[in-house]
């Protein structure tokens, strides 16, 4: 009997939670407050890890304790992303068949601008990420787009991130209801449980950073994209933000979205915005 009562109570709770969620979604339209969100998000991590320097959160699991930090420092002496960085630099300066270069597609010739991506494009009415902008640049110049997940795209973004190292993330949300809606959509995706394992992004990266799943230390969500792209030992290679999202989804047995689908672009917008002020550290290296 007791178990049945618990089950009933549990169901009632779930139903109530669903109702509450539905209700907040209705109200959400005029209650989106990214500034307050970002402050609360950052404070949550600063209070949870009072001994971690704020700018160290961008080093993912390596920020979580002294042992990990030492591992990171050793790794940075011969960084595994170096070959990608060199390749990216060369690709970036090599002209397309039409004689133009990537520099022609970006403000400031593409140097030191990574911290401004993703941005909300008011003409398109959507979020534009650095990866998307790079492929659009290629296509506008008659070149075939690259795979979003690794190889050339990782090399190009590695180089662009490197030229922005140390610059604080600086994502803007223009006064446009579509920009707020994109932010809110990304936030909703981040906190929604999905897949057979029933995890949200936040389950691991807000509730459990610093904890281990088997031997792997979970990274804090704060600043997680500041280090992109990353060389991951687990991948034996480089991966972009797109790759990170796709593999997180498939590892929790959820259905991954297409790289650069609207929802992934919105999550990147949300996650980057709440990391405003923290330095770009990419390209990064991860276990």
């Amino acid at each position, binding site marked *: 009997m007791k*178990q049945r009562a*618990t*089950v009933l109570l*549990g*169901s009632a*709770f*779930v139903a109530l*939670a669903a109702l509450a969620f539905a209700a907040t979604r209705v109200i959400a339209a005029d209650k989106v407050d990214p500034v307050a969100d970002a402050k609360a998000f950052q404070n949550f991590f600063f209070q949870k890890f009072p001994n971690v320097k704020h700018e160290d959160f961008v080093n993912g699991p390596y920020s979580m304790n002294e042992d990990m930090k030492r591992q990171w420092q050793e790794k940075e002496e011969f960084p595994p992303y170096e070959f990608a960085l060199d390749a990216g630099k060369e690709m970036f300066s090599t002209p397309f068949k039409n004689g133009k270069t990537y520099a022609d597609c970006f403000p400031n010739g593409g140097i030191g601008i990574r911290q401004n991506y993703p941005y909300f494009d008011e003409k398109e009415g959507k979020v534009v990420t650095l990866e998307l902008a790079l492929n659009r640049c290629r296509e506008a110049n008659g070149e075939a787009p690259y795979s979003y997940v690794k190889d050339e795209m990782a090399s190009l973004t590695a180089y662009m991130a490197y030229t922005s190292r140390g610059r604080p993330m600086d994502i803007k949300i223009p006064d446009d209801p579509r920009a707020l809606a994109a932010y809110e959509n990304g936030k909703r995706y981040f906190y929604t449980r999905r897949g*057979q*394992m*029933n*995890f949200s992004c936040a*389950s*691991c990266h807000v*509730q*459990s950073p610093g*904890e*281990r*799943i*088997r*031997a792997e230390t979970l990274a804090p969500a704060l600043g997680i994209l500041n280090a992109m792209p990353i060389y991951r030992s687990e991948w034996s290679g480089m991966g972009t933000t797109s790759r990170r999202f796709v593999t997180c989804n498939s590892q929790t047995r959820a259905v991954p979205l297409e790289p650069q689908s609207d929802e992934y672009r919105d999550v990147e917008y949300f996650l980057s915005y709440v990391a405003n002020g923290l330095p770009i550290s990419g390209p990064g290296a991860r276990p």
Partner: protein
Amino acid sequence: MTVFPCKPALLVALALVAGAAPARAQSTMAAGQNLAFDRGKGNCLTCHVIKGGDLPGTIGPELKDIKAKYPDRNELFAIIFDETKRNPQTMMPPFGRNRILTEQEINAIVDFLQTL
């Protein structure tokens, strides 16, 4: 949700089986350990320290003294089946509800957990 109406009957049946056949219980215990350690099944070690398991994670509590903590095996079954019912914030996947494990597999894991 659909499994609840038939669960009491199933539990009674399993209790009978467990009581009547110690040799069988021994083998479901071993099967339970395999399921608990299997990365594609229970994968309990990802989050819990369990005696006899390598590379445990740290998210959940160590699984020990289980019989003292959960004298009622139904409670243990319910936690593995869908802990979100009791704690909506839990990290623990709803192994039964999301069909990561069958009821039979959960029962074998419960047998194993009760030996810890």
